[in-house]
């Protein structure tokens, strides 16, 4: 349910994973590769992860979400490898009894993923490459 994957993200498949008879709402967040970043034209993006640690960190985020907004079901997939503009890099899908919890859980989870998951993004431009390093990309409370 918390995975680093090399294949394209299958959103309908993730929606099926969280579906159940108690759910009255399913909220999703999908991050996609954008053409422009900081004034540069992006040709492609390469994501790298520390997969074993990243999956543990994603599971930990799942536990935080369940404590704050549960009961709910949640899946997170983050893709690694080379992605073209418009392709999905990350998907977070949450089902809950009501929309408020589902939406809040998704919003909280993507912020935590960006802060703590050991995943890095390298952008490819027409004239070179650059690793992005989020200034707030640091471990939170353990």
């Amino acid at each position, binding site marked *: 349910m918390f995975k680093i994957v090399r294949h394209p993200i299958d959103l309908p498949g993730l929606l099926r994973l969280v579906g159940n008879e108690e759910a009255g709402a399913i909220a999703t967040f999908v*991050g996609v590769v954008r053409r422009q970043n900081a004034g540069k034209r992006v040709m492609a993006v390469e*994501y*790298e*992860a*520390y997969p*074993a*640690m*990243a999956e*543990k960190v994603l599971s930990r985020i799942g536990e935080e979400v369940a404590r704050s907004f549960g009961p709910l079901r949640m899946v997170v997939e*983050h893709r690694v490898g080379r992605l073209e503009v418009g392709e999905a*890099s*990350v998907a977070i899908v949450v089902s809950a009894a009501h929309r408020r919890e589902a939406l809040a859980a998704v919003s909280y989870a*993507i912020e935590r*993923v*960006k*802060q*703590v*998951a*050991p*995943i*890095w*993004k*390298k952008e490819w431009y027409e004239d070179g490459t650059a*690793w*992005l*390093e*989020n*200034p*707030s*990309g*640091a*471990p939170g409370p*353990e």
Partner: protein
Amino acid sequence: MKVRVLLFARLRELASRDALELDLPEGSTVGEVWRRLQETVEGLRAYAPPPLMAIDQAYASPDVVLRGGEEVAFFPPVSGG
């Protein structure tokens, strides 16, 4: 004592490798592993800020003492999402 070191993203590129094994004095801290790495691997001297550190796939601060046999990882601030 031996530890297995993993490097990611910009650190992996600077070092031109993604893993190595280091033999260290007993009682070394994870911060001391990083200093040894910068002495041993020339490309890493260009990386000035302290990197993020993890022991056995959990974030760790530089003062944590190692027992030997751990998987120690160093990497830049994260940028997933």
